[in-house]
């Protein structure tokens, strides 16, 4: 009987995501071989895989001369660590006293019903994991639900469906037209003061801002949304994520210079004039959404 258990367990490992032993070794190299860094190592592995695969723990045990029992004890002791794969979206509902009396159990029930799982489980399509937490320290805002790091206060039962829909779409997507943080700006070239607006091409349903970009001796147009706060754009050729581009004015063909570096990724910030007075700066790195507006 026990023999069967061993065999079936090995099968389930194979069906799971393969563990990259090279990656584990790199993680181990980063940390001191001595005791005291086990939690840091496990945290890093969990960030990579979303959980702690059995194979990974065995490698850690092998390479650090710790017994598997000790590592397993730590991994099962802390709630941060999970030995089972988690879903893409993590729904964390507060069950602290304050949230509890404000109806958190009913909200969790609603989540359980809609997702078809119990608290602590993951849906079969690996989309959602539902967890409970004992207090998030925001008792006045209860019942609190955290989804993928975004906090939602005073959650009602009727809001659950909406929250789940939003979670699938992603919370950082801005609703253009509805969001007050998004408004149109007219920008000019800082060198020739020519209007950069391009009426012939629309992004976000508004006339776009035309610029010439060059990357690795390749040149092409880039059309930015003229709405401040929207990061939508289209380009002539595909730009790989994380590449820093050079920007040129399509009218005077002079390079747009940077005055500062991006506070988020360190790439040069490209400045353009705002008609009516002011400077708008955008990060020149593809994928970095940092932008700034200085009005004079």
């Amino acid at each position, binding site marked *: *009987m*026990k*023999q069967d*258990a*061993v065999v079936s*367990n090995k099968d389930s490992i194979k069906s799971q995501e393969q563990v990259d032993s090279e990656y584990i070794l790199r993680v181990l190299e980063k940390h001191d071989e001595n005791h005291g860094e086990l939690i840091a190592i496990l945290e890093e592995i969990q960030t990579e895989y979303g959980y702690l695969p*059995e194979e990974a*723990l065995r490698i850690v045990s092998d390479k650090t001369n710790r*017994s*598997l*029992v*000790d*590592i*397993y*004890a730590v991994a*099962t*002791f802390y709630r941060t660590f999970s*030995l089972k794969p988690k879903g893409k979206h993590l729904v964390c509902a507060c069950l602290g006293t304050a949230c509890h009396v404000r109806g958190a159990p009913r909200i969790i029930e609603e989540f359980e019903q809609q997702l078809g799982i119990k608290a602590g489980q993951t849906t079969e399509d690996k989309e959602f994991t539902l967890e409970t937490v004992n207090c998030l320290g925001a008792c006045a805002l209860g019942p609190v639900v955290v989804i993928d790091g975004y906090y939602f206060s005073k959650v009602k039962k009727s809001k659950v469906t909406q929250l789940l829909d939003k979670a699938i779409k992603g919370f950082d997507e801005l609703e253009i037209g509805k969001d007050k943080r998004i408004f149109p700006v007219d920008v000019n070239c800082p060198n020739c003061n020519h209007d950069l607006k391009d009426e012939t091409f629309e992004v976000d349903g508004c006339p776009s801002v035309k610029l010439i970009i060059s990357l690795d001796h390749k040149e092409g147009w880039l059309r930015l949304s003229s709405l401040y706060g929207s990061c939508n754009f289209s380009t002539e050729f595909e730009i790989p994520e994380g590449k820093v581009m050079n920007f040129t004015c399509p009218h005077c063909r002079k390079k747009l210079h940077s005055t500062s570096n991006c506070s988020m990724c360190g790439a040069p910030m490209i400045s353009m004039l705002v008609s009516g007075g002011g400077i708008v700066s955008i990060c020149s790195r593809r994928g970095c959404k940092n932008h700034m507006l200085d009005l004079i």
Partner: protein
Amino acid sequence: MITLKINGLDVSVEQGTTLLEAAKFLGFPIPTLCHMEGLSPYGACRLCVVEIGEGPKAKLVSSCTYPAEEDLRVRTASQRVLRARKMILELLLASCPQSKIIQDLASAHGIRQQRFKQEHEDCILCGLCVRMCAEQMVAKAIGFRNRGQNRSIGTPFDVKSDVCRLCGGCMYVCPACQLRCTYNEPEKAICGGCANLTPPCVDKEQFNDMMCYMDPCVACEIKKD
């Protein structure tokens, strides 16, 4: 040398001696469950509580982990100690009613009835088997897992451990189950260690999975024959 008073008697012991050892040296009996010579003291079962100090500062400590101090006054069988010990035994008996060792201790302390619901947990988490495996057998095949009320002892991932040598040490020291502790001769393998006509542990489903970390389990193999 440290001089202290145990139940009014002076005793001199070496630095680092525990109160339990000092009391034993004088011949005062202190019941223990999770203590075993050759294994590090753990203080899990709390059965060895003694009272130290005087007046309002008097407190209960576990004698197996408390080191002897100069001029310490220790009482191993005061009213308070006996009451605490009785309560601990009652609770242990509720979690492991089939254990002969716990039944005997409870009987010796005058427990005649059970006030708590029987749980049949089959493990009192005393950690004897874990320490036996790690310290005497130098294997570290089993250990504690999870925490709080889910805490349990077993192998990682509940599969046979690569480092287990089937020594049986864990079964030998376990105070919760007599079947594994007492018998190594096949003909005596019907438990009855708890002196019940129908031992509750034998009837229990999945008995061979309980607390047994060996594969194949020696005790279960014996039982099958």
